[in-house]
C-alpha cells in the first residue's frame, strides 16, 4: 500500500514541485496551503508523513507540528520542516514542537526524495 505524505506550504509552486516529485516516486500526496487547511484535511484522515513549511498564514508550521503531534494517530509519524538558512531559531522551535528533521530551501527533487527515504520506513 502506498504511503501518504502531506505537504503544507503557502507557495503554490513549492507545493506543486513537492507533490509532483513525491507522486512520481509512488507516494500519495495531500496538499495544504497553510496550517489550518492542513489540520482540517487531517481530521479523520491518516497520513504517514508530513512535510511542512514553517512560514504560513493562518497557522504556521510550528502550530501545525504541535497540532499534529497532539493527534494520537500521528504521534510517531516523521515530520520534516522546510526551512531557509536564515531561520536557525525557527528550526530549533520546530524541533521542540516535535519535528523529526528538516530540509533547507532551496532543495532539489533528489534531496527531497533522499530525506523521505531516510525517515519513512
Amino acid at each position, binding site marked *: 500500500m502506498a504511503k501518504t505524505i502531506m505537504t503544507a506550504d*503557502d*507557495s*503554490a*509552486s*513549492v507545493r*506543486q*514541485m513537492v507533490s*509532483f516529485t513525491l507522486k512520481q516516486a509512488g507516494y500519495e500526496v495531500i496538499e495544504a496551503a497553510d496550517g489550518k487547511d492542513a489540520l482540517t484535511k487531517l481530521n479523520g484522515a491518516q497520513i504517514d508523513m508530513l512535510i511542512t513549511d514553517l*512560514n*504560513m*498564514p493562518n497557522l504556521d508550521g510550528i502550530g501545525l507540528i504541535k497540532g499534529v*503531534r497532539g493527534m494520537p494517530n500521528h*504521534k*510517531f*509519524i*516523521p*515530520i*520534516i520542516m522546510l*526551512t*531557509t*538558512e*536564515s531561520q536557525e531559531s525557527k528550526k530549533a522551535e520546530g*524541533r521542540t514542537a*516535535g*519535528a*523529526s*528533521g*528538516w*530540509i*533547507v*530551501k*532551496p*532543495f*532539489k527533487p533528489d*534531496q527531497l526524495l*533522499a*530525506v523521505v527515504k*531516510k*525517515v*519513512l*520506513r
Partner: protein
Amino acid sequence: MTMEDKHAQTYLEEARELLAELEEAVLELENNMSDMELVNRIFRAMHTIKGSGAMFGFDAVAGFTHHVETVLDQVRNGVIPVTNDLAGLILAARDEISSMLFGASEADSAGREEIIAALRSLLPGEKNEGGVAGAETKEAVPDSGAEVQPVSSRGMRATYRIRFIPGSDTLRYGNDPIALLNEMDNLGELRVTALADRIPCLEEINYDDCYLGWDMTLISEADINAIRDVFIFVEDSSEVAIEKIANETTIGDAVTEKVGEILVARGDVPAEAVERAAKDQKKIGEILIEAGTVSKEKVNSALVEQHIIRQQAERHSATSIRVAAEKLDQLINIVGELVTTQAQLTQAAGSNGNSELLTAVEGIERLTGELRDCVLGVRMLPIGSTFAKFKRLVRDLSAGLGKEVDFITEGDETELDKTVIEKIGDPLVHLIRNSLDHGIETPEKRETSGKPRRGIIRLTAAHAGGEVIIAVEDDGKGLDTEAIVRKAMEKGLIDDAKSLSDSQIFNLIFQPGFSTAEVVTDVSGRGVGMDVVRREIEALRGSFDIQSKKGKGTTVTVRLPLTLAIIDGLLVESGRERFVIPLHHVQECVELTGRDINNTHGRHVMNVRDRLVPYVRLSEFFVTSDREALSIEQVIVVQAEDFTTGLVVDRIVGEKQAVIKPLGKMFRQADGVSGATILGDGTVALILDVPQITRCAQREEAA
C-alpha cells in the same frame, strides 16, 4: 514543457499574485503603521518570493529579495520602525522584483544597488555602510543542510565501531531508530548488538520512550562523514559515537585486541579496573594444579615449551614480511610477460646475428630464468603447516572410531605454491579419513591378524622432477579387489574384470557413488568422496595413483606440479602445429624409422632400449592437417603415472620456458591439452596434458 518549466511557470503566476498582494498591504500599512499583521503578510510574501524563487532558478530575484526580507524581519521584531520611507522603499523593491521577473530586461542593476544600499542602511550596525554592492546571488543558494550525502569516497574498506543510544524522546519526534540501523546496513556489513540494560521493569515502562541502544560494527568503504550523516536528525538528542577501528592494512594489528582493551577503548570500563581484573584472574595452569588434575612440574614444563615456541615465532617473524597476495600475483604476471618477451628477444637476436647482442641476450635469458624461479619461490610455503592440522584430525577421528593410530609425517619442509597448499587440504583430509575409517582395522582385529595393535598412517611429501609427490600410506587391510569388482559389476560399471589390472580396478572407486563400505559412517562411506577428490586434484593439474595389497595396506600417491604459472617444456612441431611438452615428463628422445614401424606389424609400439613402448602420433591424436610423410620421425619418450609412452612428432624445436595461459572455457574439456603459451614469434603453442595422452595411449594399447 519540462516539469522544471512548469514549476517555473507556476512560480511566476504565484509571484505575480504575491507582488500584487504586497502592493496592497504596503499601501494599507502606510495608513496603519502599527498593524503587525500587515507587516507579517508583507514579510511572508517576500519570504515566499525569495524561497520559491531560489527553488526554481530565479537566483537573482532570490538574492535581491533577501535584503528586503532581512529588513522586514527586523521590522517584525520591532527593531526597525515602520515609516513612510520604509514603505516607499518596500514598494520600490517590489517594483524592482516585478521588473526582474516580468520586465523587459534585468539590466537595471544601478537602481537595484541603490535599493539594496538603502535597505542595508536601515539595519542596525550597518548605518554607515554605503553602496556596497554585494553579489546578489550570494545568499541565494545556500546548501541544503539536510542534504543526505551519498557514499562520498569509495575507498578502502574500514571497520568502524558505532554506539548509538537514542534519547528517550526519540520516538516522540517521529525518528525511527530501526530506519537508521537499516541505513547503516546499506553502507556495508553491519553487526548489531542491542544494549538492553536501560529497559525498566514492566510496570515502569513508558510506551513512547526509547530505552534501547545499540553497539554496532560496520565494515564499509564509506568514509566517516557518510556514517555520521545517518544520524544527522538525532545527534542533538542522542548519544552517537563513531570511531574507525582499523582499515584494511591495519586490521592485522587490531585483531590482537583483547576484550578488556576494547571495553577500555569504548570508555565502558576504566583502564585500572581491567588491570586489576587481569591480575586477579587465575591462570589455567593454576586452576588445574589446584584441582589436582595435573602436577606442578608438568605445568611448568608446558610453560617452558610455550616460551620456546613463542621465541621461535618471534625470531621467524622478525625476518619475514607479510605481503598482500594480490601484489604477488601481480609480480608473477609481470614476470610471466617478461619471460615471453625475453623469448621473443632471444629469437630476434638469433636471427639478427650480432654477437654482442647475442651475448647480452643470453645474459638476459639467464637472469630471467633466475628471476622466474625466485618469484615463484616467493609464493612457496612448506607443507608442514597443513600436515600439522591433520595431527589433530587424526587424533580426534581415531578416538571416535575406536582405533589406535600413530600419525607420522615426513617432508614437512617440502615447499609448494601457496594456492596449491590451500587447495590440497580438503582432498588430503578425505584420503586420511578413508584410511582411518576403511583402512586401519580395530586393535582387536589387528592383533588377531598378527599386526601390531597400533596402526600407522604415514603422510609424506617430497620433490621429484618438477613435481611434488604427497603420499598417504596406511598399514590397514588394503583394498579388496574382489569386493570392488563385485560392486562395480553390481552398479553396471563393468562387465567382467578379466582384463583389468589391479591399478585399473582401483581406479573404479573413483566413479561417483561408488563405495564398498557396508556401513555408511559419519566419516565416510557415502560414496561421494573419491570422485570429488580426483576432480580437486586434477584441477590442480595433479594426478594420483593407488597401490594396495589386501591385508597389508594402501598407499595413495598424489603428484602435483610445483607451480601453476610457468612451465619448462620441450617445443615440438607436428605438421603446422606446435606443441609444448612439459619437461618433467620427458625421459629421452629417439627416432622412429620406417623399419621400426614394419617390425611391429602395425601395432603402435616401438622398441626403446629393449623396452616396448607404445606411441602416439600427435598429428593423429590432434588430427592436424597438412602432414608431410616423413621417413624419420622424432619420438619424445615421456613418463606419466608410471606409464611410458612415445609422442611422435615431425621435429623437435628446442627447450622453452612457457608461461601458461589458460584455455578458454570452450576448450577446457579438450583432451590432451592443459593450456597454451605464446611463442616468441607470436604464435600459439598448445601445452600437452601428458598424463591424459598417456592414459589414452595405454587404453588403446590394451584394446
